[in-house]
């Protein structure tokens, strides 16, 4: 083996993020000291990002099956059957650390990566969503990060040509030094034409496609799993730059050669580029892989084997082609102006062999590279249960309308228009419900089917009670799909947590995962893909331990509507309609936005999630939408009942007269409590009787709480608030903040 590489020292091993016992494991596995290139390969394969070494044993508990699941976790993306021979392919992935270092490029490459995951499987991307968590608005870096990340998410999706139709944005001081950028992509494919990563057949050509390889992001995958400290801003040259133009060409070229039946296996080069993709193709297919790096298209001179194996240059793919189709495939790629090079072959040896300049730079057992990665059952302690806060322990506001006016204009609850107007959300001409509603709705090709898409999680709940918070995230995604009339089908999860080597953080992870599992099982809403991002912490100078982010398991949900034209929106539609509240209200104020933003207290147990009630109430609402009884529908989430009502009024430009809070509940708890499993629907006045009777029969709590109409929100006994003023407040905060005016 070749020699002019650096000597392996304990320091070098440590700088690759490998612990001494992990290095021991490598020595045992290969029976000798690894070469430098091999060390790089191991570090890439065995880091948290690729090996899931801290999370693997816990992920096993997730429900992943249902009759409509074609492909669960384990491939580039999950695949579900939506009938008529059509399949939906989707996944969510994080690009947190790179986005903190360079927000624009970090976000673009995050979006690019997830789009690639989806079209690698043979699907044409039809929608994107994104979930963004930033530090406190007052933090000096926040504005810059918001501006860069939003421009980056838009910059990539807009140019690539996929509508970005939904997402979440939140601010919290726990993300000050470690923002989260989670991007989700959804694609459409023929159910019988899905492409997978497993190679098959010996001596098949392995082809490199797309952009050239440079020294981008070398050690990016390792960076994604390392805690941030003050020096992290020095890790700059590892920044990857996205090229959405190249990716659009790659998409068209890939779909074209798939349609021409040239492809045996395909894998995109994501984290740890060539290494991960080649190893995965071989290992999944029980084959060895020989790579000849001299054939790899490079854009810089003098790249070493180590650099080529670890480069994270974007917009690249690896394919195993049908040998007889090689010429045809090459012609297609050339037409699109992309690089095409045969860089290796499959072999029967089950070895991963890498040659460069005639020398063997790596020769490793291919299965063991993945299978023998360390797996940890890290110690975990459950988060202490927090006390339930009774409404009488929470101060009532000066007035209910004043509290509403204040809350609707907070960073937490205000309009995200400033964000989504920078995303092309109408391209492709299929967007039925644009951002701003509960779930986005996109038409499937020429219809009549539609997809309902959403991303949800309430991190403050997860922090207070990981188990209930995990349940809540799934339930809210399910609810948002239901509220537009969709039938929830499956989810993708993006689990963002702190340092798993700390038992209390590992406890959050385990707790959330249990909650996610329970909810997804109860609601028949299986997990078909996902991503884990750990070590999301900021080291605080002078302190021993880093500070973790709020546990943030983002849940991306997909549902289907048989007829997109029957989807419900949240806007009030006309005057004189009855406003009905579905679900039980106790007035749960623990962890509510009211408690935090009006009373300045982030305390207490979060609202519990009753999954049976979720199912029952949601099914009832979906039924009312399907039958055309409901004229508007909205789930009650952050901020509680009155916020949800205000959102419906603002969207419709129509007010409402509301009955007073029932005497059994304190008004502020009634209006701002965040009890779960609730929806608001409007129905024509004439329908009220029959609907109430039907709900009673089905055991679904349903009460009339008011009537639409007028241009104010008027609670009996309180001063009316003009809808126009509420709207102004709702729309004010974001643009004002970003322009530096507040």
């Amino acid at each position: 083996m070749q020699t002019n590489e650096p000597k392996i020292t304990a320091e070098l091993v440590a700088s690759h993020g490998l612990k001494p016992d992990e290095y021991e494991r490598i020595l045992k596995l290969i029976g000798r000291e690894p070469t430098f290139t091999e060390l790089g390969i191991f570090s890439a394969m065995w880091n948290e990002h690729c090996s899931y070494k801290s999370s693997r044993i816990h992920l096993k508990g997730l429900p992943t099956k249902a009759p409509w699941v074609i492909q669960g976790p384990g491939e580039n993306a999950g695949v579900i059957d939506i009938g008529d021979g059509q399949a939906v392919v989707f996944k969510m992935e994080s690009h947190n650390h790179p986005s903190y270092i360079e927000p624009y490029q970090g976000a673009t490459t995050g979006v690019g990566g997830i789009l690639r995951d989806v079209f690698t499987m043979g699907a044409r991307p039809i929608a994107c969503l994104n979930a963004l968590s930033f530090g406190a608005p007052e933090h000096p870096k926040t504005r810059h990060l918001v501006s860069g990340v939003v421009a980056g998410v838009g910059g990539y999706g807009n140019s690539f040509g996929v509508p970005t139709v939904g997402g979440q944005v939140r601010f919290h001081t726990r993300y000050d030094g470690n923002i989260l950028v989670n991007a989700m992509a959804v694609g459409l494919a023929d159910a019988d034409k899905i492409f997978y990563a497993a190679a098959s057949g010996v001596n098949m050509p392995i082809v490199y496609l797309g952009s050239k390889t440079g020294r981008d992001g070398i050690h990016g995958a390792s960076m994604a799993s390392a805690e941030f400290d003050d020096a992290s801003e020095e890790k700059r040259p590892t920044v990857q730059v996205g090229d959405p133009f190249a990716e659009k060409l790659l998409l068209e070229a890939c779909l074209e050669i798939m349609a021409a039946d040239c492809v045996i296996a395909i894998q995109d080069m994501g984290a740890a580029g060539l290494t991960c993709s080649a190893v995965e193709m071989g290992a999944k297919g029980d084959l060895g892989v020989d790579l000849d790096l001299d054939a790899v298209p490079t854009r810089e001179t003098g790249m070493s084997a180590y650099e080529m194996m670890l480069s994270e240059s974007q917009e690249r793919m690896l394919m195993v082609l049908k040998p007889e189709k090689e010429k045809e495939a090459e012609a297609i790629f050339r037409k699109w102006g992309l690089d095409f090079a045969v860089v290796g072959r499959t072999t029967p040896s089950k070895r991963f062999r890498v040659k460069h300049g005639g020398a063997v730079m790596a020769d490793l057992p291919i299965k063991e590279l993945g299978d023998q990665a360390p797996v940890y059952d890290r110690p975990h302690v459950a988060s202490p249960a927090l006390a339930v806060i009774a409404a009488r322990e929470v101060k009532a506001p000066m007035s209910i309308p004043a509290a509403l006016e204040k809350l609707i204009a907070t960073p937490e609850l205000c309009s995200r228009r400033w964000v989504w107007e920078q995303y092309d959300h109408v391209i492709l001409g299929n967007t039925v419900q644009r951002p701003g509603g509960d779930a986005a709705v996109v038409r499937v090709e020429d219809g009549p089917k539609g997809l309902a898409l959403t991303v949800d999680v309430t991190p403050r709940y997860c922090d207070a009670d990981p188990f209930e918070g995990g349940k809540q995230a799934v339930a809210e995604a399910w609810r948002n799909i239901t509220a537009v009339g969709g039938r929830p089908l499956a989810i993708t999860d993006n689990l963002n947590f702190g340092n798993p080597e700390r038992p209390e953080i590992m406890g959050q992870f385990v707790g959330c995962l249990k909650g996610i599992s329970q909810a997804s099982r109860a609601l028949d809403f299986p997990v078909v893909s996902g991503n884990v991002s750990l070590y999301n912490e900021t080291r605080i100078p002078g302190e021993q331990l880093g500070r973790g982010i709020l546990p943030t398991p983002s849940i991306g949900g997909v549902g289907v509507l048989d007829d997109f034209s029957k989807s419900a929106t949240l806007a009030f539609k006309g005057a004189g309609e009855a406003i009905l509240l579905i679900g039980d209200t106790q007035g749960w104020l623990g962890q509510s936005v009211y408690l935090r933003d009006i009373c300045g207290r982030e305390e207490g147990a979060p609202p519990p999630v009753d999954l049976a009630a979720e199912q029952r109430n949601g099914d009832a609402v979906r039924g009312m939408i399907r039958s055309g009884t409901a004229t508007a529908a909205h789930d009650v989430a952050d901020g509680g009942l009155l916020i949800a009502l205000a959102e419906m009024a603002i969207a419709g430009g129509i007010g409402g007269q509301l009955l007073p809070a029932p005497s059994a509940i304190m008004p502020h708890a009634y209006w701002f409590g965040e009890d779960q499993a609730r929806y608001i629907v409007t129905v024509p006045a004439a329908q009220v009787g029959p609907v109430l009777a039907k709900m009673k029969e089905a055991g679904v709590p349903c009460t009339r709480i008011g009537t639409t109409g007028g241009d104010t929100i008027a609670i009996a006994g309180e001063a009316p608030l003009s809808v126009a003023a509420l709207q102004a407040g709702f729309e004010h905060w974001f643009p004002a903040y970003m322009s530096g005016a507040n």
Partner: protein
Amino acid sequence: MKARVTVTLKSGILDPQGKAIEGALKSLGVDGVASVRQGKVFDIELSGSDKAKAEQALKAAADKLLANTVIENYRVELL
């Protein structure tokens, strides 16, 4: 006082723009172009006449706004 700040990509950082322009020049038949990298110039008019102060202001401008120092280098010239 007039000044120019020139911002260029650090070497090794991918330049998709440069790449696309390179391709376009080739297909337009412009000969001999081996590679193109694109950068920006800012022509800045400054009030005052203190050179040292101006230079300082320009450096601050470049650091804070004109250049993305994560991926770009800059050069300040007083003309």
